[in-house]
């Protein structure tokens, strides 16, 4: 594991907490949409995961997303925020974190910008979380499952853009990892 600075650890802890509690904040609004579409969820996870994607992009650490997912699941279990997944809730946190890591690893040498990689990671991690929830709790199939996964991917992509912008903003402040390219004073771009 990379020797992170104290600032980096604090940033990672903050992203873990934000990811965990952001979902609760967005849920009431997300439920308005999912209720109208008669599906059990799938929107708020994309917003929650954007903090993991941001942290993974900025720290550039291997398995950073999975580790943060594990920390989130430990926090959720200790706070009793397990939801309908119960004792299997760690799967729902670690699986999307792992997908984020795999996307960053797979696209490392590809001609993609950091912003594009963040968007792609969040776009794939969100349906991964939805799929985990479906396997453990919902057991949806057919059109309902397709809608559930596609809305998760769409919200993941949209929140991925927000994550990319956030990463771009935070980059000059956090400054970590070798060959890090800050963008202070250059405005925000993805």
């Amino acid at each position, binding site marked *: 594991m990379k020797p992170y600075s104290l600032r980096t650890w604090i940033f990672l802890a903050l992203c873990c907490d934000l990811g965990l509690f952001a979902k609760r904040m967005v849920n009431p609004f997300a439920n308005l949409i999912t209720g109208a*579409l*008669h599906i059990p969820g799938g929107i708020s996870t994309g917003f929650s995961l954007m903090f993991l994607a941001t942290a993974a992009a900025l720290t550039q650490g291997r398995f950073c997303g999975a580790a943060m997912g594990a920390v989130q699941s430990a926090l959720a279990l200790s706070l009793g925020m397990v939801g309908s997944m119960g004792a299997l809730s760690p799967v729902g946190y670690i699986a999307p974190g792992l997908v984020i890591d795999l996307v960053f690893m797979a696209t490392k040498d590809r001609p993609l910008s950091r912003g594009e990689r963040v968007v792609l990671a969040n776009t794939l991690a969100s349906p991964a979380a939805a799929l985990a929830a479906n396997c453990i709790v919902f057991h949806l199939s057919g059109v309902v499952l397709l809608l559930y996964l596609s809305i998760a*991917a769409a919200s993941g992509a949209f929140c991925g853009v927000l994550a990319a912008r956030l990463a771009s903003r935070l980059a000059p402040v956090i400054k970590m990892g070798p060959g890090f390219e800050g963008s202070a004073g250059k405005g925000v771009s993805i």
Partner: protein
Amino acid sequence: MKKRSRIFVLIAALAALTAAAAAVRLAVWEGVSEGVLRIESSGTTTDVVFSELELGEVKGTVINGKGEEKSVDARGVSLSGLLDQCQITGFAEVTVEADDAYSAAVAAEEIAVPEKVYLIAQEDGGVKMVVFGDSNSKRSVSNVVCLKVR
């Protein structure tokens, strides 16, 4: 292709896929009015108004996903009682489906156990299934709209 364009294309494609799936979902979704249960059994469909059933007091304790006990005190009917009222017999399993497609199955043996599986009235007008004796509330289904009897 510029990076902004690639992201825009990705979002547009996912939005189009979501819109198409939502259109199909809403087209095939057969909604029922609040408080109405649709019972599908042996190829026939019956709509039952929950408040018009013979309801009684349902009291008990369920255990939620956190392991906490939660008391239940509502008006309702046992699932076996509901099926009796609808004259449905000779089944192996009943799948209870919610408005949001969440579903849970209960076996005929469980339904036959007295004071185990109930449908109760929610405060907001919907109907909820509770299964007493489960170690978690995974089979508590809120906003029940359909019972599929097999």
